């Protein structure tokens, strides 16, 4: 493989939360490159810093120190508005709790990123419809979140994340609130999207979910403990363990 510029790149990334005189090192010097087209699963025990990393990659939060680049652009050099545009155009975010607007129906929820778009996005209604059809909800467009099952709500959220054709899809425990069968549906959908060229980063606790990914990264105490793309790193960290699953 020739050396190409990673689509997501982190160097010595740290996030420290200060609560009174207590310091929590949620991220502690993380170096990470993710290339276009990868399907990455991020795993690790609770509190290991997975969400903290995801929020930084999603341009929702700023690191305490270190630098990160998306598409080669350093986020530290971008203004609030530029970050908003990056979230709108390049990133699609899927949350564990779906985060749909309760008063708006599926169609309106999916349209929202397109309506905030500053560049020309073409026919907004047609695109929103297309995305809902892609996630298999073409017939539920006028349903409000309350009138949809959890899996359906998460699919609306995915359609919303997709609507503005992002190159990166970020999902923080997207199946955390769903049962096994729905989880499989959602992960299949993500896999399809990945095959279509979208870079996918998923946080999960479940090995089955991680199994859909082409690369698994394990976190512990704010550091990368193992990375299936860099087996050396893993061996260096924990020589005795077999590759693959952690429990």
């Amino acid at each position, binding site marked *: 493989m020739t050396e190409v510029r990673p689509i997501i790149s982190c160097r010595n990334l740290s996030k420290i939360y200060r609560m009174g005189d207590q310091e929590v090192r949620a991220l502690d010097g993380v170096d990470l490159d993710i290339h276009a087209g990868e399907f990455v699963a991020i795993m690790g025990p609770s509190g290991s810093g997975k969400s903290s990393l995801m929020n930084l990659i999603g341009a929702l939060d700023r690191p305490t120190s270190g630098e990160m680049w998306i598409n080669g652009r350093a986020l530290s050099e971008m203004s*609030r508005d530029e970050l908003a545009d990056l979230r709108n155009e390049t990133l699609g975010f899927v949350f564990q709790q779906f985060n749909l607007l309760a008063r708006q129906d599926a169609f309106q929820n999916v349209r929202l990123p397109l309506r905030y778009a500053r560049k020309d996005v073409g026919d907004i209604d047609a695109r929103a419809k297309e995305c809902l059809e892609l996630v298999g909800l073409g017939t539920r467009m006028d349903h409000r979140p309350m009138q949809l099952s959890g899996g359906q709500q998460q699919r609306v959220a995915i359609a919303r994340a997709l609507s503005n054709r992002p190159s990166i899809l970020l999902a923080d425990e997207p199946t955390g609130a769903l049962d096994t069968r729905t989880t499989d549906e959602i992960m299949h959908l993500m896999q399809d999207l990945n095959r279509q060229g979208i870079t996918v980063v998923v946080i999960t606790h479940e090995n089955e979910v991680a199994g859909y990914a082409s690369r698994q990264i394990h976190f512990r105490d704010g550091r990368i403990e193992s990375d299936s793309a860099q087996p050396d790193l893993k061996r260096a960290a924990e020589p005795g363990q077999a590759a693959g699953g952690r429990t």
Partner: protein
Amino acid sequence: MKVGVATSSATEALFSNPMRSLLTMLGIIIGVASVMVMMSIGEGAKAQIEAQISSVGANVLNLQPGNMNRGGRNQGGGSGRPFAESDVAAIGELPFVVAATGVLSQQANAVSEEANWVTNIQGGDAGFFEVNNWRVSEGREFTAQEVQGGAAVAVLGKTAAANLFPGGRAIGERIRVNSVPIEIIGILEPKGQSGGGGMGMDRDDTMIAPLSMVRNRITGGNRWVSRHVSRIQLLVQDGYDVMQAQEEVTALMRERRKISPGDSDNFAVVNFADMIKQRAAAAETMSMLLAFTAAVSLIVGGVGVMNIMLVSVTERTREIGLRMAIGARGGDILLQFLFEAIALCTLGGLIGMALGWGGVFAYAQIANAPMMVSPVIIATALGAAASVGVIFGFFPARRAAQLDPIQALRHD
């Protein structure tokens, strides 16, 4: 900034909690309603005063006996020594006087074949009609000869005519006043109310008759002044300075009433137009005061709006975070909440306007005043409401716009 998303989100928020929106709007509703009532009452009074000035005539001077202060407010109530017909004649001689008339008036009971009616009987000279710019619409005015001869004739004001002759035909008929038979020879054109706000008298409820006849047969003479008149009215030539005329008339009367140079006048020369203008200025001050009150209630309403908007921003922090996460800029969020505040206030303004309209209508009915709701008033009332929205909505909207995306998303 994306105006479309902002407006639709704002209106949606407004109607999602109608009761709260309505309560929040209350201050604005009351403020706008009072702005509207105040302005239209003020404008109505102004129009009425203007009409009065034109009906009285700007260059008519009135002489009344008794002391008056410089402001023109009557203090002695006309209690001083009356004028005489010779005074009227002398004034009539002044080069700038077009016409002059003495006036004697009294409330009296008039009796026609059909009805009984108490009205204001005014004795005047033949010049009365010209000085007062008050002409007959039917019949004729009495002549100088009739005044001299003390003819028992009279001209009726519209209201008096209607009450004495409900049947309609008045001219040529006879009435009796204090058992004096008087022939009706004319009907005056209507003049309407005097005094602002419907509190004045109906100027058409009157009867004008030759001065000498009224003195001799109705009011009776005066103990100290023979051939007396209680007031003198004169019409100043067009283009002649009314102030100058006022001074010359005062000088003439001081001489005729033998007032020593150091002593103050025992009569007053009044320009009614000036008095009305002064009253208009007073009315203006009053409506300014009321407008200030209205402004205060708008500000109180605005603070209420600001308060509820701050609550709304707090309640919807997660929603704001989500919108930011999918690409809304700070400006988009700012606009959304600003629009919400403006919509809240404008809607309140519309309701207040409907209410104010009702108030103006009721006032017009009660006070019998003209209803004045001009586009300027509507624009002012709505503009005031919208500005309150902008001013008091800005702070909460900016607070929403400055939220940190991740903190907003984590908010519960």
